[in-house]
């Protein structure tokens, strides 16, 4: 069973993940409309490209924007979660081996202890997000079962993966659960809010271009002060 799951099923979920997310990105770009949004996407490239890059880069930097600086707890939770969430799936030794075996793609891998630290950091980030959601009336009003489901979907691969490493006696069970939950994440990502994996970049780029092309890029002579 594990062989099937980590063989053809793994490749299939990777395909769904990449094709699905690519599809959403293409759908996003094709759906942009300069008349409706009132943004001259095809003009002022000297301003729009730096504007898009700046809008993404500043938000990828902890403390890079007034928004992050105003909410240090949220910032801490998000970055703790996302460092691991980006690096571990791609560069954990077990993952790179599996990827090479199934697809022939070879990626460098993280030293195991670094990966462990990142994983624990991500789980701490998730724990912080949970606490924030539970104790903030603002977030209680906003969050629905879908938001909790997405958080659970993110939590499970980290948790099961870590348990597989440390609960050696039950390794087979944990690794099976890890593969299942990991693939579930991959398969559902394009169809849930997890699609922000790619749409974050699209949306940020769009707003960066909007400000650079139309809303003050000319007068500011530089990027928007996020």
């Amino acid at each position, binding site marked *: 069973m594990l062989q099937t799951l980590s063989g053809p099923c793994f490749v299939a979920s990777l395909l769904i993940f990449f094709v699905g997310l690519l599809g959403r990105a293409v*759908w*996003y*770009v*094709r*759906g*942009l*409309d*300069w*008349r*409706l*949004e*009132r*943004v*001259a996407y*095809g*003009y*002022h490239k000297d301003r729009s490209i730096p504007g898009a890059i700046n*809008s993404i880069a500043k*938000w990828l930097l902890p403390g890079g924007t*007034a*928004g*992050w600086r*105003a*909410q240090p707890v*949220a910032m801490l939770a*998000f970055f703790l979660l996302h460092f691991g969430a980006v690096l571990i799936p791609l560069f954990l030794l077990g993952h790179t081996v599996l990827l090479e075996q199934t697809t022939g793609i070879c990626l460098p891998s993280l030293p195991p202890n670094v990966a462990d630290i990142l994983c624990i950091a991500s789980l701490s980030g998730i724990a912080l997000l949970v606490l924030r959601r539970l104790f*903030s*009336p*603002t*977030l*209680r*009003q*906003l*969050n*629905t079962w879908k*938001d909790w489901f997405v958080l659970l979907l993110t939590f499970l691969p980290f948790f099961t993966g870590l348990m597989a490493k440390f609960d050696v006696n039950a390794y087979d069970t944990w690794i099976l659960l890890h593969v299942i939950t990991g693939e579930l994440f991959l398969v559902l990502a394009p169809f849930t*809010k997890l*699609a*922000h994996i790619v*749409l*974050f970049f*699209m*949306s*940020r780029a*769009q*707003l*960066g271009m*909007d400000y650079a*092309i*139309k*809303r*003050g*890029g*000319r*007068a*500011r002579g530089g990027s*928007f*002060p*996020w």
Partner: protein
Amino acid sequence: MSQILCSPAPLTTKEAIHELLADKGGAEYYKQMRQLKVNQDALAYDLQSTCKSRTRTWLNICAHCGMCADSCFFYKTNNNDPKQIPSYKIQSTLGELLRRNGRVDAEFMMHCMDVAWGQCTCCNRCGMYCPHGIDTGVMFSYLRGILFKQGFTPWEMKIGSGMHRVYGAQMDVTEEDWVDTCEWMCDENSEEWPGLEIPVEKVGADVMYICNAREPKHYPEDLAQAAILFHVTGTNWTVPRVGWENTSLTMFAGDFEGCAMNLKRIYDAVERLKPKVVVGTECGHAHRATVVEGPYWAGRESGDPPVPFMHYVEWVAHVLRTGKLKINPEKKLKMPCTLQDACNYVRNDGLGRYTREIMSYIAEDFREMDPHNEHNFCCGGGGGMNGIGRYRKERNVGLKNKLDQIRATGAEMVVTPCHNCWDAIRDMMEVYDEHNIKWSFLKPLLINMMEIPPNIEHVES
């Protein structure tokens, strides 16, 4: 009253405007709105054809992280009411409308109206604080357009849109009234300023000046002050006979067809008079509607207006910088001063550098609000909020945020180069009994402190 006052059709005749104006406060209008039938098929079609990937993605990927909450002054001034979180406000209105694909009733549409106009001024501040770059103000502006087409628009906004369509101005100022006011202001001031002119419809002037209908209608001295400043700076200027009004209650109303009509009048005047530059008065949304959004409504692919357009603050900074307008150092503002950044041309057009440049010339003790510039808070009356009686209570609660900001600077004067901000600041001083803080447009301040060049004749009045 038996006539139909509330319908999806825009007002296009003087009679229709007067009938609606006669319905004091829109009592009958809102009563009829409750009975209005939602054209669900048309609504679904509009949503399908105009709500595209950007907006749908914004609504879909919103992580409900709540980072937008504190960025909204309505949330802050309503004791952190979760129902005032920008994300909640848009998800429970436009989000719900899309989920139901337009299968909604009048009650729901009125709820959308109350949120779109009564809980959001489209200041776009929340968009700056969202990690995903979700601009809720933009979405509320879009929602206003959807609501307008179905007839769910606040009474004053419906009248405002009609005024623009019928009079080409937000108020009933006819072409004749406008030209008469120009002549009157010229006559009134030419004794003090011999040679003062308000040249109407002059072809080939360097500057074409456009303004807010409130100025000729209620504050004609503002027009006179503009003329004096052009006169003193030796500016070769003119005003158009038609297309002189740059405000857009149509934009606030969500009447985007009406917005395009306004634009056509102004851009036609540019075509006719061929000025080098167009200068617009001290109004925020007028600049947004004419210069920032306007080119798109006029169908201009580059997003640029046909000739350079300047907000008044850009022009003032220019004449101060080039020495065409000189300030008498003795007459600079001595009291502590602060500056209100209008969302529509500071956050949304980057002109904060010019207002600060002006302050460096005119004020000795300038104090920034916190936050300021692009991160400023709305005055509390933007987006049409000042003018809507139905949301007066909500507006007055929101005004407290700006008042607190102003008080924290210790300023005794708020320089306010925007009509909406000016109104909101005037009203907050009254509502919260604050009598020690003054507020002013730039024009009267500049006239009081400028040095009159030797070539300009001035007879002290």
